[in-house]
């Protein structure tokens, strides 16, 4: 995998374990958003890459790197909020 600088959080456009470019021909009329897979219970999770803070280091985290393990993915409103 090529080493890219840490960018912003971004979905790869694929589900975990699959290539970001599907084999089916890209429809030119589709917008970027329409091509994105969305999360559905019972289906493969949309893969993503995001910058992260992890044990004292700034790094990147990629969901598909955790294939083979159980993952708890938790979104929350913001750091320093009260709940």
């Amino acid at each position: 995998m090529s080493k890219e600088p840490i960018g912003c959080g971004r979905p790869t456009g694929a589900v975990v374990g699959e290539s970001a470019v599907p084999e089916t021909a890209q429809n030119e009329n589709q917008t970027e958003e329409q091509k994105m897979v969305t999360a559905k219970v019972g289906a493969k999770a949309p893969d993503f890459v995001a910058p992260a803070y992890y044990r004292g280091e700034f790094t990147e985290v990629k969901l598909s790197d955790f294939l083979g393990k159980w993952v708890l993915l938790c979104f929350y409103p913001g750091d320093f909020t009260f709940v």
Partner: protein
Amino acid sequence: MSAVAANYDTLQKLGVEVISISVDSQFVHKVWNDQELSKMAGRDVPFHMASDGPGNVGRVYGVYDEQAGIELRGRFIIDPDGIIQAMEVLTPPVGRKLDETIRQVKAFQHVRASKGTEACPAGWEPGKKTLKPGPDLVANVWKEWNPKEDS
């Protein structure tokens, strides 16, 4: 997130990796860990704290609030095959209950270990009765399982 950090050992024993994610930068995550979370959890946050400033990841998971520019409390349990087995989404003012997440993880792990031959009825906890779906169980759940004992 402090509750998850404080109970991280329980999740590790279950083989669960945690990723937290919000619109805050990784730099703010560090300060939040250093100044507050580590004091609440009694330890440094042991999992990846991911940053999703533009909300791109939150959008594909259906939890990004465009009006407020924040992410709702979306919790996803993803199995080793990458399949989302459970999700829960709360608006900001109410926090999650980690015990319920752990219960669900244990139940999904039990089902997976049984290769889908067993199912966990409402309120199931480890050690309680599971159901074995099949022709003999049709219309006979009432003989096998009492909902009053499992609430």
